[in-house]
């Protein structure tokens, strides 16, 4: 296959965009539907990344690939899911303020642990040694196929989210977001549903984090900063946080625009793109959040499209 048109930069740009779409989709279930403002996305993402990387690189594996890779990947996912269980249990019955504190605190804890546990994570310097679990011959081929795998995974996630919207489970999540006490008084298990949503969402974020670790080969605390949380939130909010495609549209318009279109195709002087562009990107992301929530709170795509049953009930 001829991959000349696909430069390494483009692969990484696309990979990051797809990654953020995945995170924004998971956040959509939590924030867009169930109304849980998770500000610690990067914590779950990072714990998956580090748990996977540390086990894979540091452990003494008695058998050959691909088993160590698959076991480590599962371990990263489960570790993030368990963290989600803990944090979900902590915050599921708190209001928005408590949720912000709990999730922000968790992301900080992950960042601290990644820095202090030098023997495992390499501390502030970071750790290398991660690579693709296969070899197709060329570096670009490896990267492109990993990108394809992640695209398939995020595509499946998109399909799942669309299914949730049309299912009784989705209606339960929407009712939790709209009025949790009412849903509880109608006999719905509000605490358990939120907890389970948090566990599954966090495990998904952890899996994505582990897959990101494979692509970048090198884990460091710099990679689990607040920018990841910001990118997912701004994409979701801009696109439309209660719509299935909101995450896709929003992330393409924010991260996609900056990391692919401007970085690769805009004729910028090198001095600007090196230092000012990443800063400008964050400034604009912050401003976008303010402007969208003030003037079009539901984002570009707007109001939630309810499923057939709900539309029939409301006579639309």
């Amino acid at each position, binding site marked *: 296959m001829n991959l000349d048109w696909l430069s390494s930069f483009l692969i990484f740009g696309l990979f990051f965009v797809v990654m953020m779409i995945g995170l924004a989709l998971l956040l959509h279930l939590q924030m867009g539907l169930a109304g849980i403002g998770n500000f610690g996305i990067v914590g779950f993402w990072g714990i998956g990344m580090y748990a996977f990387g540390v086990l894979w690189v540091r452990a003494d594996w008695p058998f050959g690939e691909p088993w160590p890779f698959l076991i480590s990947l599962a371990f990263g996912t489960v570790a993030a899911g368990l963290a989600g269980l803990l944090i979900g249990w902590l915050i599921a019955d708190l209001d928005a*303020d408590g949720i912000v504190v709990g999730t922000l605190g968790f992301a900080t804890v992950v960042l601290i642990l990644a820095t202090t546990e030098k023997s495992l994570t390499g501390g502030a310097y970071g750790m290398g040694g991660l690579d693709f679990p296969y070899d197709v011959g060329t570096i670009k081929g490896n990267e492109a196929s990993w990108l394809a795998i992640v695209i398939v995974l995020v595509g499946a996630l998109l399909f799942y989210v669309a299914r949730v919207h049309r299912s009784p489970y989705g209606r339960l999540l929407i009712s939790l977001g709209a009025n949790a006490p009412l849903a509880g008084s109608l006999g719905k298990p509000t605490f358990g549903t939120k907890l389970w949503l948090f566990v599954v969402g966090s495990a998904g974020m952890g899996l994505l984090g582990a897959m990101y670790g494979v692509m970048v080969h090198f884990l460091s605390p710099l990679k689990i900063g607040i920018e990841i949380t910001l990118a997912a939130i701004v994409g979701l909010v801009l696109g439309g946080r209660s719509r299935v495609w909101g995450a896709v549209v929003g992330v393409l318009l924010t991260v996609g625009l900056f990391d692919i279109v401007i970085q690769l195709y805009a004729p910028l002087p090198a001095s600007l793109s090196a230092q000012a562009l990443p800063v400008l990107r964050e400034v604009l992301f912050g401003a976008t959040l303010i402007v969208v929530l003030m003037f079009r709170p539901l984002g570009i795509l707007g109001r939630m499209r309810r499923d057939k049953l709900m539309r029939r009930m409301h006579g639309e």
Partner: protein
Amino acid sequence: MDFITDALVIGLTEHAPLVLAAMGFALLYRLTGLINVAYAETVTLGAYLGMWVNTTFGLNFYLTLLPAGLLAGLVSLATYLAIFRPAKRRNVGPLELIIISFGLSIFLRYGLQFVFGYEVRFFEVPPPDTIRVLGVGVGSFRILAVVSVAVLAVLIYWFIQRSRVGLQIRALASDEELAQVSGIKPLTVTTLIWFIAGVAGGLAGAFYGVGSSVRPWLGWEEFLFILLVVLVGGAKNIRGVIIAGVATGVALAALTLQFGQALYSRLALIIAFMVVLKVRGNPLAEAGKV
């Protein structure tokens, strides 16, 4: 005995700005019920403004406190008038308000780098004299920080609990409509609170800045602890915040001495605060909504 005095002195002197910043945040939280993430940038801004006045006009550190505090207060007020007041009028929900303040926080944090440059900056001050307190050497700026924080804390406490405007603030926080019926003007009082909170945050930032360095992440690094102190210390009254703030400072210092690594003490305290929040629940749901 040495351990206790060391922890007390270091905790009080090093973390005095935390108490001040938490008091400002608590005022805001109590009155508006809003977790204003951008408060972190009010703190950062105080450090940057102090550094800017200090290095451009060559004022000594004590004189820079005045413009730094006032300017940070004005910026805080401007964010209320430009963003949070219109947002409230549009009936933006509580979660959306938090996201807006998060956006503002990011906007300011990175915007500051365009104004003041990317590199870490420092106050141009003579190296502080070391004074021995209970056998522990402490820099003179830190002594000043403790004294000013104590004075400001007493002032703010007196202002809120004893003065007429303070009474209006508390009335507005507990029942907005009843307060309006009694002739209290919400806009005046709210404006004042945003300004005072900004001044407190800005001064805390200037003290943080002179104690270490001036960097865009300064406020954000302290923000989680400000938040935890206010939520756990209780936004019910200022006294609880002061006690929680002092206790946090001393605990941070003691744990750092114990573990030999500052990050572990932060880790332990974050977990301790989380446990308290979970055990106690969050009884602040009825906080004011201006």
